């Protein structure tokens, strides 16, 4: 088709979209404010300052050129100091198309290029027309293979506005509440002592109302934050990987190459479990920090069956959604009940020491703790299905992780003294993810089973 002229167009050194000039100006505005204020006294300064800013923006735009050369993306910029950056296509790991508010006004897209091992964005094209941006992304992610017309992306998920709000309502973002409390502490500062007066002035009722208000504000903020981030969420499958589109104020277009997916997790917290809802996240290699966790969301919220079906389709393993998990040995329940007993005994001891005989009431805590232990035990399960290890655990937040054996980096089988006594062990599946704490674990396997799995999975890791 148009592939020849298309490739030709991509190979020439090209400028950014003309809209880059006003966008640069917008970016400089905060710095220009003092100049403009001065301008109210001396208009010449304001006009001069603006002129300099306009010329600088135009020069910056004219000096920037990008082109594809061989199997690399080449960026040239700078007037006095000239910089050239060469990004080999094979090192490119993700290409994000982002549309901040100002970009949407001009109908352009910012292209961010992330590479393997880079912690920050290594290449940035400030503004391109949406069409050429899409084509460039497709080319970059095809690793320098020849350009062929792209097949239409097949939609996999579209999340309705109501579901996004429900995701926020059931999200349980404790972090936001904590941050707000921290902010309150910051604002109070040295007036901290007055807080001790507060009860007498407000009374108990006043305090309770205040606490409820703070909680409500935190809750509303968290719901709004989720809604803004995931508004209009769609996921589709294309040749170059999974395409994600989301965001209310800043529209984001992310691409997750399928071969970069290290693990997939279906997450159900207590509230969502009651509603039969779940979220789906993926671990993508080589990305660290907050942004990684956001781009890793394949489904902010959906029906349980939808979530597991998506896991099956993304990993392309038929029957994965309906695979039966083997429960943990009964002995694992004993470990959890023992833990509940010990914690209750400690609580009661502390309470009796502090309050006297009334402290024995703390023994009531045994009921919820034991229930928690039972729930945590019931959540445990593992399976192996067609090259995928499935691990489920967690009571408050139940996670079912799917890890392709081909993506395992290393394995660790560990046992505490109690586990050794009960002939149990936990197997950690170490993957190229955000950190050790998030590695999927098969908790409380029978020790012999754990041994066998360890040896067998180590054998199964592909040997080049």
């Amino acid at each position, binding site marked *: 088709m148009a592939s020849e002229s298309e490739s030709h167009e991509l190979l020439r050194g090209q400028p950014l979209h003309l809209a880059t000039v006003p966008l640069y100006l917008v970016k400089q505005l905060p710095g220009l404010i003092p100049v403009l204020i001065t301008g109210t006294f001396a208009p010449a300064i304001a006009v001069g300052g603006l002129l300099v800013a306009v010329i600088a923006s135009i020069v910056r735009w004219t000096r920037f050129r990008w082109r594809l050369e061989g199997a690399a993306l080449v960026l040239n910029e700078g007037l006095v100091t000239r910089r050239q950056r060469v990004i080999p296509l094979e090192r490119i790991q993700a290409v994000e198309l982002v549309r901040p508010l100002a970009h949407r006004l001009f109908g352009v897209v910012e292209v961010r290029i992330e590479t393997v091992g880079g912690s920050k964005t290594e290449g940035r094209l400030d503004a391109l027309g949406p069409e050429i941006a899409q084509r460039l992304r497709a080319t970059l992610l095809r690793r320098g293979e020849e350009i062929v017309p792209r097949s239409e992306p097949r939609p996999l998920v579209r999340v309705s506005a109501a579901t996004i709000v429900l995701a926020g309502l059931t999200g349980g973002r404790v972090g936001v509440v904590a941050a707000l409390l921290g902010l309150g502490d910051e604002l109070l500062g040295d007036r901290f002592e007055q807080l001790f007066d507060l009860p007498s002035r407000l009374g108990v009722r006043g305090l309770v109302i205040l606490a409820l208000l703070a909680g409500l504000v935190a809750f509303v903020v968290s719901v709004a934050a989720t809604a803004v981030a995931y508004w209009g969420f769609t996921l589709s499958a294309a040749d170059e990987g999974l395409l994600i589109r989301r965001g209310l104020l800043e529209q984001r277009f992310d691409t997750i190459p399928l071969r970069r997916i290290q693990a997939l997790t279906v997450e159900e917290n207590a509230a969502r479990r009651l509603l039969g809802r779940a979220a789906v996240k993926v671990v993508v*290699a080589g990305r660290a920090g907050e942004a990684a966790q956001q781009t890793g969301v394949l489904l902010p919220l959906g029906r349980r069956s939808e979530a597991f079906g998506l896991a099956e389709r993304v990993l392309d393993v038929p029957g994965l959604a309906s695979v039966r998990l083997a429960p943990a040995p009964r002995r694992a329940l004993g470990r959890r009940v023992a833990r509940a007993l010990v914690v209750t005994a400690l609580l009661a001891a502390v309470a009796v020491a502090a309050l006297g005989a009334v402290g024995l009431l703390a023994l009531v805590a045994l009921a919820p703790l034991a229930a928690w232990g039972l729930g945590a035990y019931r959540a445990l399960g593992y399976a192996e299905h067609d090259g995928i290890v499935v691990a489920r655990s967690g009571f408050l937040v139940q996670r079912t992780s799917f890890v392709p054996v*081909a993506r395992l*980096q*290393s394995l660790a089988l*560990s046992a505490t003294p109690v586990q050794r006594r009960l002939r149990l062990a936990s197997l950690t599946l170490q993957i190229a993810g955000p*950190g050790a*704490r998030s590695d999927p674990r098969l908790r409380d396997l029978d020790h012999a089973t754990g*041994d066998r799995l360890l040896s067998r999975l*180590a054998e199964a890791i592909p*040997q080049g």
Partner: protein
Amino acid sequence: MDSVADPGEMPRVALSPLDPRVRTLWWISGGVAAGIATLVALGVDVVFSPLGRPGLLTVLVALGAGAVAAVLPVLRYRTWRYALRPRDLWIQHGAVRVTVSVIPYQRLQFVDTEQGPVGRRLGLAELVVHTAAPGTSGRLPGLDAAEAERLRERLALVQRDVDGV
């Protein structure tokens, strides 16, 4: 502790202890630390003599630190086991929580060897291997320096699977 030594508890793969010379290395470094602690105690004793009798603190610290420096390397030595197999590296470590790690050479990103002044004298090196997983714990103290070097050379020959990273 005894369960660490019990081969029935942990996987069938035959794991061998570290090079015994590593105990010497730990004895020397522990001895140096104990010596420093004793000197500090001596200084404090000369100025304040906090335990009433002059010299008592120095004697107690010297005995305590000396005992720890003498015993700890023996206990530490027992918590390590390893095997360099044709395709993967097995490391067992831990006294309370015992962990067996399996690291396939195929997955190694890079290999570090570290050698302090004492280690160089004794012909020992510490090996640290890294995979793309931040959770991998591939530390092996007290490996024969020549063996560490051999391993590093072998790892350089492994053809890596780029997509698996």
